[in-house]
């Protein structure tokens, strides 16, 4: 009964969303407040129906209702409750329902906080949002209904993939989806402004905070995914250039370009066209990401269920939504009216930012889609690996960091080079001193690329701090500007992230070796002793736990690190639980490989300097986005 009720609410929400679109359309075209209000009510009811449907699916998981096929495929009576609940989005059908629910929450939030905006603009935004909801609900009902029964039910479920039985994976998908789906708001606002002609610049003011919020969520979502891969996959990689990671990075890059471009549009009425295109692309790439992950065209840990019908549906949907959006843009672009600006001005730097980030996105898109295209054309099977992405993305991002330092110190509209140079004196001096100190410090194992990465990061931090004290921006309690503070935090976060990436990439130490109980090994200044090996039993797995005693040169006791190997019976999967001693300046990372002979194990020992900076930087970026959003003084409305 409960699953049928869930399916019923899903279908109910479909009819409500149809009602929402049509009444808003009537309202927007006939300028009738009654119809627009009716459409809003339908939207709220639709969201409630989706949330009920989602809650009922969670209930099926909580009560181990194995007559529901999706539950039986992804859960098990032995699975602890928190993982049974997160198993709701552990595979395709449920994560799609989560996506739809998050989308309706975003739309409802927009509808609730948009009372001061023109009614017609809101109506058009909600119409486009409704169309997106409609597409996804149809997709869910016809190709991926999570409520399908399986009779007779199996005696127990197939269990959740052990890789997903983890705290990081409880929160990673919802965070990521909050980001992906959040770009739908800027997308819909962009289209609404095109439909109405009057708000080609004004929409940027309205969409800015929504975009910042979505961007902050996406930043956290990507960071969580990276952190999870680091400790859960058992070998300490934190970024693989896996197509699925690229699928989340591309909307992030375009979203980053979008928040900068929107800022310029909102403040100076420039780049209106750019902002519109970036808003369309950011959401388009989010949809593309969904397609890549869900269609089974990719070889990836995320591609759990492959079904060609699903891929074709999403592909068609992308073509309609993104193609339609570009068509509207093409038809209405002539009404865009940009103000001019001088070559030496902050606008130029922001344009550069947009262009560079778009180029990076295009190169990642090329590397991600090219193998798929070649395969589809039967020209052979190829893959584009990390070397390509590293070789391309890093050199393009490096100049971006130079200009990232300069831009916040320039003036809008018109500036002169000598004034800018004057402001840059202090950070230039600081960076130079640091560079010399760095080269002296690293003189023994100097890597030119590592030095470049570090110097650029310090440059960004130095200039960002300088902006806080420069005449125009000076922060005082009287005139507290969140936009400036948020920008500074986010830029410093970016630099910290780059520092982490650089140091862990060039100064990581790794050793793979065979060890038995009692054996000792050295790596850098540390001594690793394989102290003991014991059996462990969990609720749905059995395994062994090895304890390593790590000491430094002086034999002063440092730390005991447990590393586990687990065997999950139901799925017959072996899993590595790495032992990590986390520290701000370095992680000691130990994982068990496999048993060799009767006594020994293959062991992976790693020392990863500054790896935490990667996620710390991401957290700072997200905080910066939120600060910029929350504390921006409201600008006068039209």
């Amino acid at each position, binding site marked *: 009964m409960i699953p049928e009720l869930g399916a019923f609410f899903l279908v109910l929400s479909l009819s409500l969303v149809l009602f929402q679109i049509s009444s808003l359309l009537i309202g927007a075209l006939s300028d009738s407040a009654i119809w627009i209000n009716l459409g809003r009510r339908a939207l709220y009811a639709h969201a409630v129906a989706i949330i009920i449907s989602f809650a009922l699916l969670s209930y099926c998981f909580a009560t181990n209702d194995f007559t529901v096929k999706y539950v039986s*495929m992804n859960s098990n009576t032995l699975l602890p409750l928190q993982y049974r609940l997160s198993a709701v989005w552990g595979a395709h059908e449920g994560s799609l329902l989560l996506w739809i629910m998050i989308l309706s929450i975003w739309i409802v939030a927009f509808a609730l906080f948009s009372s001061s905006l023109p009614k017609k603009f809101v109506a058009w935004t909600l119409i486009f949002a409704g169309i997106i909801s409609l597409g996804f609900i149809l997709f869910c009902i016809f190709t991926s209904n999570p409520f399908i029964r399986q009779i007779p039910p199996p005696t127990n479920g197939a269990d959740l993939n052990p890789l997903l039985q983890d705290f990081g994976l409880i929160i990673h998908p919802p965070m990521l989806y909050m980001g992906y789906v959040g770009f739908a708001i800027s997308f819909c606002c962009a289209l609404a402004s095109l439909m109405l002609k009057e708000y080609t610049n004004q929409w940027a003011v309205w969409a800015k905070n929504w975009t910042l919020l979505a961007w902050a969520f996406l930043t956290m979502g990507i960071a969580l995914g990276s952190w999870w891969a680091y400790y859960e996959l058992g070998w300490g990689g934190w970024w693989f250039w896996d197509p699925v990671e690229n699928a989340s990075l591309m909307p992030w890059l375009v979203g980053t370009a979008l928040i900068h471009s929107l800022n310029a549009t909102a403040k100076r009425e420039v780049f209106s066209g750019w902002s519109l295109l970036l808003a369309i692309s950011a959401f388009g790439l989010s949809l593309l990401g969904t397609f890549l992950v869900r269609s089974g065209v990719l070889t990836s*840990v995320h591609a759990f269920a492959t*079904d060609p019908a699903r891929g074709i549906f999403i592909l068609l949907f992308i073509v309609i939504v993104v193609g339609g959006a570009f068509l509207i843009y093409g038809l209405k672009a002539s009404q865009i009216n940009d103000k001019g600006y001088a070559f030496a001005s902050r606008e130029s730097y922001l344009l550069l930012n947009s262009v560079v980030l778009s180029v990076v996105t295009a*190169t990642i898109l090329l590397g991600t889609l090219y193998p798929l295209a070649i395969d589809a054309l039967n020209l052979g*099977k190829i893959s584009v690996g990390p070397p*390509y992405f590293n*070789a391309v993305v890093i050199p393009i991002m490096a100049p971006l960091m130079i200009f990232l330092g300069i831009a916040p110190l320039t003036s809008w509209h018109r500036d002169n080079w000598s004034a800018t140079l004057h402001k840059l004196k202090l950070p230039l001096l600081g960076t130079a001193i640091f560079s010399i100190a760095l080269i002296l410090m690293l003189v023994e194992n100097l890597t030119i690329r590592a030095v470049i990465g570090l110097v650029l990061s310090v440059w960004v931090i130095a200039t960002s701090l300088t902006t806080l004290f420069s005449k125009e921006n000076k922060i005082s309690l009287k005139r507290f500007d969140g936009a400036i503070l948020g920008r500074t935090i986010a830029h410093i976060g970016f630099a910290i992230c780059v520092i982490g990436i650089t140091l862990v990439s060039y100064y990581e130490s790794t050793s793979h070796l065979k060890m038995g109980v009692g054996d000792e090994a050295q790596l850098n200044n540390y001594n690793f002793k394989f102290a003991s090996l014991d059996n462990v039993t969990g609720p749905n797995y059995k395994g062994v736990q090895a304890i390593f005693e790590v000491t430094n040169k002086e034999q002063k006791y440092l730390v005991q690190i447990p590393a586990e190997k687990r065997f999950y019976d139901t799925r017959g*999967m*072996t899993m590595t639980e790495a032992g990590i001693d986390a520290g701000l300046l370095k992680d000691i990372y130990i994982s068990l490989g496999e048993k060799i002979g009767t006594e020994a194990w*293959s062991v992976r020992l790693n020392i990863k300097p500054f790896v935490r900076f990667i996620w710390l930087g991401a957290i700072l970026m997200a905080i910066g986005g939120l600060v910029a959003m929350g504390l921006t003084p409201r600008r006068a409305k039209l």
Partner: protein
Amino acid sequence: MKKRNKRIIGIFFGMIGAGIAVYLILSAFERNLMYFYSPTEIAAGHAKDRDSFRVGGLVVENSVLRSPNTLEVSFVLTDLKSNQPVRYKGILPDLFREGQGIIANGSMGSDGTFNAFEVLAKHDENYMPPEIADTLHLEKPHGPK
């Protein structure tokens, strides 16, 4: 006139920048493509001219041999038509098992054994990389539904 000159200079630098970017991208692309071959294609000599490439197939039962004192391991990959011996030194992924579909990255040794520097297995026991499924002429296996 001045404004126009500025614009021309802007476009000029833009073109140079774009040109450098395109050059970097395409040359990096060319150098870093990894081709995939099945054991049968290797036997037929298709991979002869490639320095490094990927080979995929099922690990033949009872073919995994370990050296007693190092992390060296050797095994045989098959696409059910031809076999390809592979050598690897390091830690194998959790889902590496006899009978499992895996992909090895590396280059061909002079003795006809593939020297792998990386061995990939996927993170789901039901999952088979599409390349291997195609190679085996099986229907693409469906994951949990």
